[in-house]
């Protein structure tokens, strides 16, 4: 039973002049089998939370702890965190020219699983996973994310999620920029991952629409660098109706 435990997390970024505090004391525990939606207005620090957990060098952890099954995540390098079972589906996946998707996926799977997957089995596995996400097999020979549309990038993030089978998945605005069909396909991919075992999901989103496909067990409202309110799925309905006005932002949470 995996548990990701975040305690009193403070994070700063250093811009041109002085360090700026973005996260101001985040407390959150995600257990296997749970899906937590983190909802908040733009600029509230949601993405910073995801990148800080993944270990992006731009973010300085000034205080607090993050543990995965009791192990200190903050002491681990970026790749160690991934191999320990953390996965971040990025809002803006990075293009890596000259590295084919198939080479990348196999290298990542080898690293995470601790041994190279048997070739024959692996080819079938990737083919099936791509087919599930309506990804054209030709993408396997293209460079990682290079020239992909926004929707294609997101499908490939979820493809990696399915193949790497992390203990805890953090999905950073995976719904942004997706049309209705793509949102459904991507959400189904996340639900297959959830159904595959005892895994935990942190679903970061601005809008409620993805929650119609992926049901959260808990909803947290994120504002000004911390969680300001927590509840069940009903909290999402409230945000759907009222937006983030109550939290000091004139932003809607619904797209309708």
């Amino acid at each position, binding site marked *: 039973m995996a548990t990701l435990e975040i305690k009193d997390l403070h994070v700063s970024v250093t811009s041109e002049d002085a360090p700026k505090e973005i996260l101001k004391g985040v407390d959150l525990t995600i257990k296997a089998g749970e899906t937590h939606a983190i909802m908040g207005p733009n600029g509230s620090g949601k993405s910073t939370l995801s990148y800080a957990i*993944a*270990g*992006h*060098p731009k973010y300085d952890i000034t205080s607090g702890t993050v543990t995965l099954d009791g192990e200190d995540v903050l002491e681990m*390098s*970026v*790749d160690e*965190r*991934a*191999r320990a079972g953390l*996965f*971040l589906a*990025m809002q803006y*996946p*990075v*293009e*890596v*020219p*000259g*590295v084919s998707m198939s*080479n*990348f996926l196999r*290298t*990542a799977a080898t*690293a*995470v699983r601790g041994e190279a997957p048997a070739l024959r089995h692996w080819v079938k596995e990737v083919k099936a996973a791509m087919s599930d996400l309506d990804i054209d097999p030709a993408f396997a020979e293209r*460079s*990682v994310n290079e020239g992909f549309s926004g929707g294609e990038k997101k499908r490939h993030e979820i493809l*990696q999620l399915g193949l*790497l089978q992390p203990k805890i998945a953090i999905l950073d605005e995976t719904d942004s920029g997706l049309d209705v069909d793509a949102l459904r396909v991507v959400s189904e991919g996340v639900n297959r991952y959830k159904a595959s075992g005892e895994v935990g999901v942190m679903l970061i989103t601005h809008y409620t629409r993805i929650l119609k496909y992926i049901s959260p067990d808990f909803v947290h409202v994120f504002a000004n660098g911390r969680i300001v309110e927590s509840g069940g799925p009903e909290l999402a309905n409230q945000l759907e109706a009222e937006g983030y006005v109550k939290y000091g932002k004139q932003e809607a949470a619904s797209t309708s």
Partner: protein
Amino acid sequence: MAAISNTADTQHGLTAHSHGAGVPVASRADHFTSFDVEAFEIPGGREEIWRFTPMKRLADLHKGAPATGTATVEVAAAEGVTVEKVANGDARLGVAGVPGDRIAAQAYTSFTEATVVTLPKDTKVEPTTITVTGPGAGQVAYGHLQVKAEMFAEAAVVVDHRGSGAYADNIEFVVADGAHLTVIVLNDWADDAVHVSSHHAKLGRDATLRHTVVTLGGDLVRVTPTVAYAGRGGDAELVGLYFADAGQHFEHRPFIDHAVANCRSNVVYKGALQGEGAHTVWIGDVLIRAAAEGTETFELNRNLILTDGARADSVPNLEIETGEIEGAGHASATGRFDDEQLFYLQARGIPEKQARRLVVRGFFQELIAKISVPEVRERLEAAIEAELQAVEA
């Protein structure tokens, strides 16, 4: 700090070269050429064509250093290919171009024996390998090589430079009408070697040249490939890969002289640099003369700086004397290692060293894929792998 010249900023590691930054002081058309070494002044290092070169490390090749040894030239000729040794002064030599700097003229004056490799007409032959071994540490040698592809020949030639010492030479590529010549020049010298080489390619009507230079080893390597067209329909592709380590100076100065209508050229050079004092220079000159209507040309240089202390200079020069062309463009970009790419790969569990290797291999991949001789391609992949392991050690 790594010095990055000719780039405005380095967002995401790569920047577009701004137009107009590389207009030369003097037209390339006025560039002086001569077979006579005495026609050239001894360069002091401040001249436009020498200003990037560390003159003190040239082993006096520019000051008339006498030959004290010879480079060994061995040819593993494919069936049907003719190999001849001819004396300096043979009438067949010097047809592809005229030396454009003092060291090239010195080499032309000073070599004793030239190697002429002739690829038979109307025939497709297997790759021929020419291995040139330097004269040995502390020795100076001059040489001359001519590769001649007869009409409608179809052939590949690998010129493999290795060993020690100082070596200056001219290499002629005479590509007759309709011939298709693939050339791969490897500069895989020992750490002490100094090599100053001028390539002169002349393309006949509808001739095709695929010219690749790979520079991996040597203290100072300076290659000046020049392409000229003798008839319409000529098509030249110049590809370069280089990987400079601490203290190495690798300089590549391709020049495409479009003086004939309806010809095509494409120049792509990519380099990686690592270590204190690693220095690469790329000067890409393209001249489209008034008569060269219908020209299509593009040149590109990209440099990837892997560590502090390395410096890449990159100057594309494009001169156009007629508006009646198909297209002309140039681009240059020099950047640091992209940390976002590294983060992305690591976030998928791939350890940092392996992630770095993936990114660098990816950087060179499009050029390696173009190398049509599998043994050379494999050797190059292995060499890049070794370079990357060296920096991690």
